[in-house]
């Protein structure tokens, strides 16, 4: 092998291994995050009501907000759609920190929901490991190494391009892993390049803040303010009767088409200077930009609208849109889910290949044990931690104070315990943790059906997916996971 080849292999293998401890959890939680609203629905143990027209939903929400928060400066109404069948209302003075309530579509009465971070936990963990800015640095660095590992991998395994259908499961264990590593890498390559690149683009502002510092004096909000027009005005303190919100909705639909409104924000309701702002849905285009129109709450006159965008901002938001995948419906969600897991599979196999090679060379010394334990925690450990999070969500009583923190604690506690367990038990930990995760998935699915999931289509489907993934995990951990050096 040439010197360049050796250097590339070193980068690919060690860069891949060290960062796989972040990348595999990020890929697995990212794949789950594609189904964020569905996961939230499951974790809040909701049961869906009937589909209602947007006008009916707005009327129900308005009635509730009038009785509940007539003096709040901001109201927000999220209309039901294909994925979320209930109405979510919010009120307060800070649009980022609102009081929220979920309304049932039949009568408009509030639904008791389990207090939980829901599917957002996975999105949040995927984005910054719940560590804030340092987490974004870690994930961003991992993303850049991932890009380098993808390109160097293509150069190292270039023979795969001649015949990428090669898969020899009956050959030696090393051969079979290498084939599957190459195959999954090639099959998912367009997706992996796209998702990693767009992920880095989303985080770019964190690790390349120079432009923000120079042009906007370090204020991130200023960039957004320059791109997204806001239409606001001061409160007049003259109480007036507003037009019913459904009339504003109808006016907004003349701009966005029937069913085109995703949410309404009402500023200073019941005031002479009140404004109703309607946001267009974003799930029918790549670019994640929400066009919006504002109306005078009292007269219904058009106050302002934004339907065209700065081309640079639009291009940036297209890359964000590609990453978060709100478009394309269930087909895109499942394809992203599978491609993401395929990426995790590829990294897992690469990790196993390197660990096995190193073990053959240097035996079970202390660094080897540590490397194996960390890899085990990042692969089977994260699966068990995710399953434990779902289990804790259903087991912790709904009325317990601070249950949200408890759920997060369970996740990290189980993850840490997995790392210690792997350090203690060595390679036997893989099998134990995978089996536990598989059993837990099955039990959680069964438990949810018993807790009323049987009445709700989304929850039934989630439970079915839990059964299937438990079964697959059980079978595959029995058959394939072993670091034995004998073929």
């Amino acid at each position, binding site marked *: 092998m040439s010197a360049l080849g050796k250097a590339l292999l070193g980068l690919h293998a060690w860069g891949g291994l060290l960062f796989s401890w972040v990348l595999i959890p990020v890929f697995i939680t990212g794949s789950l995050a594609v189904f964020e609203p569905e996961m939230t629905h499951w974790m809040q143990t909701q049961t869906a009501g009937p589909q209602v027209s947007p006008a009916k939903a707005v009327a129900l929400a308005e009635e509730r907000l009038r009785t509940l928060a007539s003096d709040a400066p901001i109201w927000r109404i999220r209309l039901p759609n294909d994925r979320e069948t209930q109405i979510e209302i919010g009120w307060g003075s800070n649009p980022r920190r609102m009081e929220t309530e979920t309304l049932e579509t039949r009568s408009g009465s509030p639904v008791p929901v389990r207090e939980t971070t829901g599917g957002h936990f996975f999105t949040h963990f995927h984005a910054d490991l719940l560590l804030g800015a340092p987490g974004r640095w870690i994930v961003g660095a991992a993303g850049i190494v991932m890009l380098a590992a993808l390109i160097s991998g293509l150069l190292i395994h270039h023979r795969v391009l001649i*015949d*990428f*259908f*090669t*898969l*020899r*499961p009956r050959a030696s264990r090393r051969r079979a892993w290498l084939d599957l590593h190459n*195959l*999954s890498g*090639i*099959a*998912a390559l*367009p*997706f992996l390049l796209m998702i990693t690149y767009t992920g880095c683009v989303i985080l770019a502002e964190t690790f390349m803040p120079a432009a923000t510092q120079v042009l906007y004096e370090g204020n991130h909000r200023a960039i957004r303010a320059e791109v997204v027009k806001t239409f606001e005005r001061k409160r007049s303190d003259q109480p007036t009767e507003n037009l019913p919100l459904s009339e504003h909705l109808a006016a907004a639909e003349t701009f966005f088409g029937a069913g085109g409104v995703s949410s309404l924000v009402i500023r200073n309701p019941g005031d002479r200077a009140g404004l109703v702002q309607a946001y267009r849905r974003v799930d029918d*285009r*790549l670019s994640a930009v929400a066009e919006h129109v504002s109306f005078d709450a009292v007269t219904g006159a058009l106050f302002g609208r934004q339907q065209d965008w700065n081309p640079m901002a639009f291009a940036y938001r297209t890359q964000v849109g*590609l990453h978060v995948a709100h*478009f*394309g419906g269930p*087909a*895109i969600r499942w*394809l*992203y889910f*599978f*491609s993401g897991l*395929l990426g995790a599979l590829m990294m897992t196999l690469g990790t196993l290949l390197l660990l096995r090679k190193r073990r053959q060379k240097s035996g079970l010394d202390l660094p080897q044990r540590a490397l194996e334990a960390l890899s085990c925690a990042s692969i089977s450990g994260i699966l068990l931690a995710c399953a434990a999070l779902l289990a804790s969500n259903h087991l912790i009583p709904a009325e317990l104070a601070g249950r949200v923190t408890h759920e997060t604690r369970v996740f990290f506690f189980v993850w840490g315990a997995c790392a210690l367990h792997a350090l203690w038990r060595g390679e036997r930990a893989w099998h134990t943790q995978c089996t536990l995760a598989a059993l837990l998935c099955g039990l959680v699915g069964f438990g949810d059906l018993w807790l009323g999931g049987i009445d709700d289509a989304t929850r039934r489907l989630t439970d079915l997916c839990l059964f299937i993934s438990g079964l697959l995990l059980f079978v595959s951990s029995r058959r394939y996971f072993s670091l034995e050096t004998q073929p």
Partner: protein
Amino acid sequence: MIPFLLTLFTSFIGMASLAIGMDRHYRQFWGAPAPAMRLKHYRLRGWVLMAAAYLPCALEWNAAIGLIVWIGVLTLALMAVAWMLASTRP
């Protein structure tokens, strides 16, 4: 739903043709060595079918979203074809 299944089916057949257009997999599939012209035909058919699989996606969604769906489906098709070839004895 139907356009999506059409894309899935067409890209699977296309990917399978591409594989059968390779000497080793031709023998795996037909159990006999291949005449060179037939290999070429299989490969050509494979590429054409895979390209054609984009059309239903583009019509169901739009050119941009269809492209993403199409690429994702090709990923699935490649995995499925490789899996099926691996489970046939050489």
